[in-house]
């Protein structure tokens, strides 16, 4: 039972990481398309620091969630 639980949690964490990668790529693509549209106007619009920070926070929170899931599993399996 414990081994199966560990495997399922790892798979779910993998899916979570995959979702993060897909969303991150889409966010980059959307930002680039916005920049393209605005550059047609003229101004050099660069990706904002806030957006970079948001993506980094997303990644950190994902790592934290993964770690927490294993901590919960550890206490559950004790």
């Amino acid at each position, binding site marked *: *039972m414990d081994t199966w639980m560990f495997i399922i949690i790892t798979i779910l964490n993998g899916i979570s990481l995959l979702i993060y990668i897909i969303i991150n790529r889409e966010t980059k693509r959307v930002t680039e398309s916005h920049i393209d549209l605005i550059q047609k106007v*003229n101004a050099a*619009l660069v990706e904002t620091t*806030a957006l970079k920070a948001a993506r980094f926070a*997303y990644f950190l929170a994902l790592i934290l969630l993964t770690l927490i899931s294993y901590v919960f599993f550890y206490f559950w399996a004790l």
Partner: protein
Amino acid sequence: MTDINIDSNSEQVLIRIKRHWIVLVRGILLTFFIWFICIFGFAISSGTRAGAPLISVILFMVCFVLLMFVHHWLFLSFLGWELSIWVITTTRVINFKNIPYIENDVNFIDIKEIEQIVQVKHGFLQNFLNYGKVIINIPANQQQIVFENLPQPSKLANFVEAVQKNRSFQVMTIEELENFFRRKYEYIISKWCIDEPECPIEA
């Protein structure tokens, strides 16, 4: 607001505006609530493991999937908030409305086509935190264009109005206006007295 430097030859980006931060508060509160529920669920799951192992496993998995879902949902809404912006240029208002994989709208409004701008702030919270919606009426468009949860809607409405006025003044300079009226005057006079010997306009 009146000292906007507009170059009529090329379109310039003047400002970029994000929605008010209040739109994120609901998501953050909900996330805290779900975390609280899930930690409680994990504790129950641990406690019931010996007595009811199947229920314990299901409860653990449900709580974990719920946490995963809320985590991605929160950051999706946060990225959506970052990506959804208003850009006001010297000639257009551009609205990017985006949530990755869920929503992707780009709305271009020609500033000279804007007939009326209305700012609406209803309720205590909107007036206290100074946010609300801006409604734009365009004669060509049957429906109103509504932009929700904008910070300082009155300033935004004034800004768009100022840009609109400055632009319309630049379409015709004083010299162009004088030339226009002189040509009009000459045309009228010529129609009236071109055949008269004392006509001020030469044929």
